[in-house]
């Protein structure tokens, strides 16, 4: 029931304390057969290193790219992915689900 997502929060804290710039991505809404539940986390650093999962691999690349920008400008943003999305060919969810991901910087 309780996922290992709390380990990701611990990792986010450890990375930030180690002086790395860090962003946290969280699945905030899902529709259809989304691969990872609401509340799943991904932690990303300024170099694009990441741990955790928000989609089981489908959109992590795009989230990491956005997260590096969030680290740069400090502004949180909400991303949406799904087959109906125009970027579907690039980063769509093969399962047909849709997810919203909130990406914020850890200050």
């Amino acid at each position, binding site marked *: *029931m309780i996922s290992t997502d709390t380990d990701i929060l611990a990792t986010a804290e450890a990375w930030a304390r180690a002086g790395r710039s860090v962003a946290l991505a969280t699945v905030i809404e899902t529709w259809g057969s989304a691969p990872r539940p609401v509340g799943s986390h991904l932690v990303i650093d300024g170099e694009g290193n990441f741990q955790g999962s928000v989609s089981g691999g489908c959109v992590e690349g795009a989230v990491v790219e956005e997260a590096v920008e969030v680290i740069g400008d400090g502004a949180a943003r909400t991303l949406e992915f799904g087959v109906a999305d125009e970027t579907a060919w690039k980063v769509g969810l093969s399962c047909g689900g849709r997810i919203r991901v*909130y990406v*914020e910087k850890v*200050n």
Partner: protein
Amino acid sequence: MDLATLSTLNAERAARRATILVTDVASGAQRLVKAAEIPGDPLAEALDRQLRMAKSGMVESEGRQLFLTVQAPPPRVIVTGAVHISQAMAPMAKLLDLDLVIIDPRTAFATPERFPEVRLVTDWPDVALAALGLDAYTAFVALTHDPKIDDPGLEAALRSECFYIGALGSRKTHGRRIERLEAAGFDAAATARIHAPIGLDIGAVSPAEIALAILGEIVSTLRGPRRAPA
């Protein structure tokens, strides 16, 4: 997120205390609500509901989209008695994601052979429970039928805030148990916390059915509407 907020979230989690992070998705504004602060919070109803389900989720309040990151400690079940019923409970608890700990100082009962992959503690319950700690996400179940073993465990449970206390035994057995606990200084309100006869009334006969009734009652207490504080 502030590093301080993240740090508090992690510390509360490590201390097995429930916490909810409220994030305004549009503005990025965030605040932390600890479990004890929920009743007085403007979002009390939504916070309580999400916490009981141990699920993060989006809620709307006054036209704002708020994401609730729910950190609920993993629920534990601590049992005195490495008996037939607890043998049946072990695989069921695992399926339910309930961390099971079995205490029994009788080392002939508490053997890894009888309880593969279960955490067994062979100290006396008062010693074992002091080390394990009983908190609001712990259920305590007394199954030995032996007051020497069950009573110290029940006394520790009654002094704690654990969310469920159950004791095996007939009404007559339980009547004598209450007399002993009252003699030990517990009042009627305290002893009323004990679920006895234990388990949901499903007509359970076999040890596995009794285990099911007990775990059903534990889940219902964990997920059901919050009871008024005693």
